[in-house]
């Protein structure tokens, strides 16, 4: 099989309160053309003024991606005509981008892998057009809503270091979790807050570009399809054509878009309505000091607590879960045990209901109390599963639930001895078989005693007493 070379170009909408170059609010469910002003409508005479928050979010992302932040950067006009581009140019960056040369780390099955980041730059989003499916093409018109026009975007371009569709997905997941941890974007692909174009070639081959992939699933499927297609092309005709392709989600295939006869000529030139940006070390450090711990560092810390790499990654890449986990740690709980419960019973519950940890009433304090109760031996792990499910549902404390439902373990040796003696008395055949050496019958006696105790007998004490009684002739 030929080795694929994949690069991703991701556009991320920043979660600022106002747009990039004007003060129109950024919202996603407003009535069409209600979040607009002369600037984002591109009316004659209007001028852009840069949003400081967008710049600081970009600094944070650049730092998180280990990029070199350029001390001097400038906006350029990228000129092309399209109805979703009100000024006839997009304010973007060209030869003086915000930052370059970074990387992010993905956790593959073979271990950590670095994916290079070529550049991170800022630009403005375009308007939204409604055509195609919602209005039939033959009816002959399109509608434009400028609410999205001018929303701040980051363009994050990876190096072609990705070598499988799985890695592409991991890259996107890692990127998403960085963006969410920083709180700079919802990074929601389905809502278009994170959009992805991919470049792919097979060893020594020509690359194709697949544009506008809008879900993790699409990215993986489109890449898988395209790898197969290019392999076949190489086998049969020997030459892949350099082109832009479109992924048809329903058919699960990539299709050639009309090839352009001419090279694109965006006639970039420095945006004269904006002045350059000079980003000095004090400003960078100020932003850095406000940054939360990044997934990459979290993973490292979690692994040191004894978590397996995959466990560490799952928690670290889910900012809400990571917060919960860290709160438990700060309450003094042992990481490994917290992780075991979070990743098994808690996640099972959340996934089944499509909920996030912050949407259920379970608190870190609650989980820590639960672990204490478990350690004290008040309940067994088996009962524990029941208790935690109820905690997730009601938010009640573990002790409260145990008491209310009478789930506490019975550790009274007198009581346990009484049940054990009863079992021994009622099963003389098994007792004599056991005493003749059929030791695997021990479990049978444990089961019987447990049943009598209603499942609440402390297994440790039960084992000890049962052994004593059985060995006593």
């Amino acid at each position, binding site marked *: 099989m030929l080795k694929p070379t994949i690069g991703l170009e991701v556009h991320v909408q920043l979660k600022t309160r106002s747009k990039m170059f004007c003060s129109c609010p950024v919202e996603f469910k407003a009535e069409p053309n209600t979040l607009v002003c002369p600037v984002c409508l591109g009316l004659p005479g209007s001028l852009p*003024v840069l949003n400081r928050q967008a710049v600081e979010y970009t600094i944070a992302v650049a730092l998180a991606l280990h990029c070199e932040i350029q001390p001097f950067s400038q906006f350029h006009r990228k000129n092309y005509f399209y109805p979703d581009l009100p000024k006839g140019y997009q304010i973007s960056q060209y030869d003086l981008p915000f930052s370059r040369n970074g990387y992010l780390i993905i956790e593959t099955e073979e271990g950590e892998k670095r994916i290079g980041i070529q550049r991170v730059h800022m630009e403005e989003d375009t308007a939204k057009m409604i055509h195609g499916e919602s209005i039939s093409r033959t009816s002959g018109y*399109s509608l*434009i*809503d400028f609410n999205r026009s001018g929303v701040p975007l980051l363009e994050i371009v990876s190096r072609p270091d990705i070598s499988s569709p799985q890695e592409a997905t991991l890259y996107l997941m890692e990127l998403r979790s960085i963006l969410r941890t920083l709180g700079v974007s919802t990074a929601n692909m389905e809502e278009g807050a994170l959009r992805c174009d991919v470049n792919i070639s097979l060893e020594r081959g020509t690359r194709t570009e697949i544009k506008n992939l809008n879900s993790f699933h699409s990215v993986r499927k489109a890449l898988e399809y395209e790898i197969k297609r290019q392999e076949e092309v190489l086998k049969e005709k020997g030459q892949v054509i350099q082109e832009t392709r479109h992924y048809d989600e329903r058919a699960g295939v990539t299709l050639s878009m009309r090839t352009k006869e001419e090279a694109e000529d965006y006639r970039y030139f*420095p945006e004269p309505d904006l002045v350059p940006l*000079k980003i000095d070390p004090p400003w960078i450090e100020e932003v850095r000091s406000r940054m939360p711990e990044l997934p990459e560092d979290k993973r490292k810390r979690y692994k040191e607590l004894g978590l397996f790499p995959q466990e560490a990654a799952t928690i670290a890449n889910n900012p809400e879960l990571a917060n919960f986990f860290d709160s438990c740690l700060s309450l003094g709980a042992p990481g490994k045990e917290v992780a075991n419960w979070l990743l098994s019973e808690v996640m099972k519950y959340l996934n089944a209901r499509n909920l996030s940890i912050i949407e259920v009433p379970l608190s870190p304090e609650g989980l820590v109390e639960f672990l204490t109760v478990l350690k004290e031996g008040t309940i067994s792990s088996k009962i524990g599963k029941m208790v935690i499910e109820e905690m997730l549902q009601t938010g009640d404390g573990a002790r409260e639930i145990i008491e209310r439902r009478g789930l506490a373990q019975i550790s009274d040796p007198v009581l346990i001895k009484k049940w054990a003696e009863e079992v021994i008395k009622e099963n003389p055949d098994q007792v004599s078989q056991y005493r003749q050496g059929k030791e695997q019958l021990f479990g049978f006696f444990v089961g019987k005693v447990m049943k009598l105790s209603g499942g609440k007998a402390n297994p440790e004490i039960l084992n000890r007493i049962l052994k004593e009684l059985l060995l006593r002739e």
Partner: protein
Amino acid sequence: MKITLEIVKHIAHLARLEFSEEELKQFYQQMVELLDHFARISELDTENVPPTSGILPLYNVMREDNPGPTLPREEALKNAPEEESGFFKIPTILEAED
């Protein structure tokens, strides 16, 4: 550097301007003449000269991230050649020519 009528046609396409053949020839003549004159600047040595894109001594001009007033929709749409249910409306965007 010689510009050709073909180049001028391509430029007209990039700039999305329609010209009649006659107009185009006239523009072509004028552009040849003007660019010929403008090419004078090539005689200057600018080897170590930085380009000026703005003459102001300003950097980092920014606004705080505070949402402000927007245009009422009817104001936003009042100059629109065509509108429909709160949207700007345009003919189909089939790009047959490109």
